[in-house]
């Protein structure tokens, strides 16, 4: 946080002898400023992340009663983990732009002479951080409540796969949140748009983590699933960057 403060956009540089007024801040400075604002807002209001984590733990409890099982492993475990994380992520996605749309954050941002793509980047980074914090709570809770094999053997691979999935969820989530926030039925449209777009993430993530969560830990994930996740992240990163400017025009 203190490192980000150093990147605050400089308002005026007196030694700059160009006739124009203050120099507009660069891309990185803008991203750092918006990200700092997002995290500060979240730290002060605690609106998203605690709710997401609590929701995930509650869903594990619901799964226990719905399946009538004390422990799960393999495909089932991977499925429950990914579905729960996805549903919890949807809560964060729905809230991502609400404050900006309601309290004039978009107008303020558009008035500033900064890159519009930087907002996408900062929001996606903020959502990524939320998801990482969510998983720091939810995955140990999952291991404690439902998972039969111990989490130890899965450790080096599972966080990497989760992170690859998180990048995809953060990018798609930011794009969908920006699309849905200006509509009348934003709470309904966000999840409706996000879930089909995130099906490939669930396919890749669940298939990659299933062999890590079996009782007799035998093998790591097939390499094609992490590769597919990485390609998905790359493609949606490009798409989101290409179309995002059009969402922020008025």
């Amino acid at each position, binding site marked *: 946080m203190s490192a980000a403060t150093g990147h605050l956009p400089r308002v005026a540089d007196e030694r700059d002898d160009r006739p124009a007024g203050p120099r507009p801040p660069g891309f990185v400075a803008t991203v750092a400023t918006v990200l700092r604002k997002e995290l500060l807002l979240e730290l002060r209001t605690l609106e998203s992340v605690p709710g997401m984590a609590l929701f995930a733990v509650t869903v594990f409890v619901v799964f226990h009663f719905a399946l009538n099982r004390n422990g799960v492993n393999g495909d089932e475990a991977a499925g429950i983990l990914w579905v729960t994380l996805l549903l919890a992520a949807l809560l964060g996605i729905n809230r991502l732009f609400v404050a900006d749309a309601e309290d004039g954050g978009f107008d303020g941002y558009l008035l500033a002479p900064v890159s519009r793509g930087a907002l996408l980047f900062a929001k996606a980074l903020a959502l990524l951080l939320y998801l990482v914090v969510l998983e720091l709570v939810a995955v140990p809770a999952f291991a404690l409540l439902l998972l039969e094999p111990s989490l130890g053997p899965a450790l080096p691979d599972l966080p990497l796969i989760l992170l690859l999935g998180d990048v995809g969820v953060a990018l798609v989530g930011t794009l969908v949140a920006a*699309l*849905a926030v200006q509509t009348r039925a934003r709470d309904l449209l966000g999840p409706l748009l996000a879930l089909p777009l995130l099906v490939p993430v669930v396919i890749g993530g669940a298939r990659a983590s299933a062999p890590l969560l079996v009782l007799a830990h035998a093998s790591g994930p097939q390499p094609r699933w992490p590769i597919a996740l990485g390609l998905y992240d790359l493609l949606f990163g490009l798409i989101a960057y290409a179309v995002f400017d059009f969402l922020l025009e008025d």
Partner: protein
Amino acid sequence: MTPSASRADRGGADQIPGQARKTALHAQGRHDRPAPNPYVRGLRPLSLATALAMTLALGMVFFYAPLEAEQGFLQKIFYVHVPLAIVALCGFVLGGLLAIVYLRTRDPRWDMRSYVAIHISLIFAVGTLITGSIWAKGSWGHWWVWSEPTLVSFLIIFLLYATYQPLRFAIEDPERQARYAAVFAITAGAFVPMNYVAVNLSTAYVHPRVFSSTSNLPGSMALTLLVSVVAMALLFTTLCKYELTAKHTRFQLRALRRRLLEEPA
């Protein structure tokens, strides 16, 4: 279907106030006759060609293509299911491309074309799901099989595109509506091939596929399939043109009615 369709019509009409006004002005200059509808041109020959091609395709399906050894008569649904799937996929991607043109030109007509392409493709996707389901029931005994990647990816794509109209008509400002719909169309259009690859990856090696590609089809079957695809593509074009014509006529009617109300009788 009916309420959403009527809502779609209203939204579609609302989004081009400028064009309606232009048409009204145009009509004034030409002695109360509205400007000719540009989408009508070529509609009759196109409709005839579509009817001919569909007749030819169906004739080939029933009288030219041989009976498939294992599935017999049931396999004929292949000549409807696969062309529907191909045309719907291409239509969704086309909707995305037209949306790119809209974002570059900001001409509302391109937005309308993108909307119509996605609308008709959505109907074709429903057809794909229904015919695929019937085929699955006939050959595997279940209405739904998860081992058929085309069917599964179509379900996901259908669920995604089913939110296109709710998204569109939940935005009131016409310009923003067109812009957001274009962003959706581009994202979803790029998602179509990506989703197809992902679902194919997930179902590969589970079940032997009946027809993995057209390469192992005998010549007469491949020719029938090709003619069916062309006929289906013509049907798609004709339906799009009809919807565009209807929408344009509705704008003209609205403009005329507005003029009638403005002028004291």
